[in-house]
């Protein structure tokens, strides 16, 4: 379906494409630091409003129903991935259903080439990103506990006090300390105290996928708070092409179509254009925007648009420990350690985070006893009460995976949307040094977990690696940043080397994806870009 006719034209100063968490942070920054008009373009529409989230949560818990209504476009999806990707496309983006886990990367992430001789350094340091981390944490309201200074460096305190180390985590922390591991409360974008007009966390344990109280930050709160005379949110509008002046390279306008039944054409003119559509849709749009003057798509003089997709994998284990835990106190909250993200020089490269949770694994009810007899009635309950005694801990380490140049997003001519645009296909590939280290890295994590079990006189119930190779978690890349236009797509501020008024924000610009949850860093990097745009 290709709609023709005269497009509806919108004119603005700054056009932001995408309305996820990075876009929301940037819009808030730009409102405060410029006088310019901002138009935010979102292909999807608003999803479940706050007032309906208690009911939506109840149905998710009861049946597994999606709490997020109208949250995707049937013909706008990517293939090739499972882990780390969601087809959600709506106001607020994936952060409408994130878990709110908000750790920073460590300083080493920005200098892996200099420190370890692998991968690539970022074009700025942790210290340079620190104020933008702080800004992101303050805008979201991150509750965090200052870890040991050597492991958890930061310029200012967390904006909110930490989520409490609950009874279960306190027992597990004692065990971890005995195993020689320093842990602290995982920083989370959840209100440990009432904040920004939103409630205190009620540990409902459905942070992912839906917080019924509003204690967890999601981007809709920012969009609702921004002044409508400065920020216009244009929903149900899919940007399909970015148009550049063939002579100067300046972006003149973008074009697209309404995603409602009308499919009507739309044109948006602005002085600055920001792609804040994540690691899939930002490079996808650049590749789609081919023209005679730019036959490889926009911002693609280096040929690197869509390449160097990065992420991480994990090794996960369940341990039975001789202590008493009560699963269900606050299952989604955890302890974190950055001890293994900050190793000294190594003969072989391995960096990973470590998280520790309470778990119910191995302590659930069952239908048959060990002798195969049926368990119903009080016999079943008695058996369950016996099984429920004791403690299970879950431990997991994300380990850093360095991306190959051919870890990439391509256009799949065999799958098109209603307008005939080829959809993205994603295929992750480890750099040779990562591929060579994978088996040893995963065994090193398993050995760590064995040591931890032994230190607590416990035993391993089971261990597992990331389920498959269909993607990696907390993915980034596709428009990597750097100082050399021959080896990067955007500069250190997110500005396209080839187009002076085109910016790419957040996850797609990152050269690597560290070994911990990435959302806070995506937002901080986006805020650094917003700072550059505001500075002019």
């Amino acid at each position, binding site marked *: 379906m290709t709609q023709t006719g005269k497009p509806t034209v919108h004119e603005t100063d700054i056009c932001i494409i995408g309305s996820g968490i990075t876009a929301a942070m940037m819009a808030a920054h730009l409102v405060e630091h410029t006088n310019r008009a901002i138009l935010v373009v979102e292909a999807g529409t608003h999803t479940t409003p706050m007032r309906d989230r208690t009911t939506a949560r109840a149905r998710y818990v009861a049946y*597994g129903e999606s709490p997020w209504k109208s949250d995707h476009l049937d013909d706008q999806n990517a293939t090739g991935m499972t882990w780390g990707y969601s087809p959600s496309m709506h106001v607020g983006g994936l952060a409408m259903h994130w878990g709110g886990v908000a750790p920073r990367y460590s300083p080493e992430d920005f200098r892996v080439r200099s420190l370890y001789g692998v991968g690539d350094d970022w074009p700025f340091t942790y210290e340079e990103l620190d104020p933008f981390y702080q800004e992101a944490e303050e805008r979201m309201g991150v509750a965090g506990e200052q870890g040991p200074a050597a492991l958890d460096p930061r310029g200012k305190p967390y904006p909110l006090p930490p989520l409490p180390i609950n009874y279960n985590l306190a027992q597990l922390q004692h065990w971890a300390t005995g195993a020689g591991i320093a842990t602290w409360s995982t920083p989370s974008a959840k209100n440990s105290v009432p904040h920004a007009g939103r409630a205190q966390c009620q540990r409902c*344990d459905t942070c992912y996928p839906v917080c019924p109280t509003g204690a967890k930050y999601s981007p809709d709160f920012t969009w609702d708070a921004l002044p409508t005379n400065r920020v216009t949110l244009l929903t149900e509008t899919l940007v399909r092409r970015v148009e550049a002046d063939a002579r100067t390279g300046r972006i003149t306008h973008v074009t697209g179509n309404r995603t409602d039944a009308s499919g009507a054409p739309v044109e948006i003119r602005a002085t600055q254009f920001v792609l804040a559509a994540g690691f899939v849709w930002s490079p996808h749009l650049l590749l789609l925007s081919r023209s005679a003057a730019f036959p490889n798509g926009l911002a693609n003089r280096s040929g690197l648009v869509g390449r160097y997709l990065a992420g991480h994998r994990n090794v996960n284990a369940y341990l039975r420990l001789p202590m008493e835990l009560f699963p269900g106190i606050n299952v989604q909250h955890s302890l974190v350690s950055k001890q293994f993200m900050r190793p000294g020089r190594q003969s072989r490269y391995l960096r990973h985070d470590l998280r520790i949770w309470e778990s119910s694994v191995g302590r659930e009810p069952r239908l048959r006893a060990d002798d195969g007899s049926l368990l*119903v009635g009080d016999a079943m309950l008695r058996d369950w009460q016996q099984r429920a005694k004791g403690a299970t801990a879950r431990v997991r380490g994300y380990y850093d995976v360095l991306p190959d140049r051919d870890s990439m997003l391509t256009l799949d001519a065999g799958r098109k949307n209603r307008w005939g645009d080829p959809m993205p296909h994603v295929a992750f590939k480890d750099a040779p040094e990562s591929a060579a280290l994978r088996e040893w890295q995963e065994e090193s994590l398993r050995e760590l977990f064995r040591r931890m079990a032994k230190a607590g006189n416990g035993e391993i119930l089971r261990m597992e690696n990331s389920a498959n190779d269909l993607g990696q978690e907390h993915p980034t890349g596709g428009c990597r940043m750097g100082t050399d236009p021959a080896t990067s797509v955007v500069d250190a501020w997110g500005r396209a080397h080839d187009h002076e008024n085109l910016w790419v924000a957040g996850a797609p610009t990152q050269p690597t994806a560290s070994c911990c949850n990435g959302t806070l860093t995506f937002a901080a990097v986006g805020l650094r870009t917003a700072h550059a745009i505001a500075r002019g």
Partner: protein
Amino acid sequence: MHHDHGNEYGSAQPSRRRFLKTAGVLTVGSATALTAVGCDPKASSETTARAARVPLDRSLLDALAVVVLPESLGADGVKQAVDRFVAWVADYDPVAEEMHGYGYADIRYLPADPAPAWQAQLTALDLLAQRSTKTGFMALSPAQRRDVVDAALRTQRGDRLPTPLAATHIAVALLAHWSSSPAAWNLALGANVSPTSCRTLNEAVRKPLPIAPAAKGATV
């Protein structure tokens, strides 16, 4: 209750494997609904599937519950658990979208209405009782009913109860539904933990209080 897996978050979602398993089992009992909703899943539930909802035979279900649920819940506790199960079945929205957060990229849908197959299984328990004892299921003693249920579940694996929606027999569904409740977990743990119930954050630091002996059979 939420169970955690190897990725970032736990998942209460029925897996693809469970979906197919359940759908396969339900094919005979709900072929019409499956066919009808297969054309337009988003428009399905409020029209075709809900209109065709098969009520569960409450008398047979009560007779089953006495055998399956813990007798220590007491008669009132068992009745409350059955009431909640019946309400849960009645409020199910067949082929609603599953949560598609992280873990797969395609849009997936919940199974068809399980009620027709579950009602057929209730009827089958009665038939089995008639054939094996010449007496209806409800007229049997609890011990005799237990034998009939045992026979009906002989192929059910039992290392862990499935989610209620993934249960392929109504006896398992009833038991799984009850045991997924916060109150059931409290009974199992012997403490007031109440998993998945929203409650005060600051109290999380204290060891959960033990449940009072008198309350053990009173709340389900």
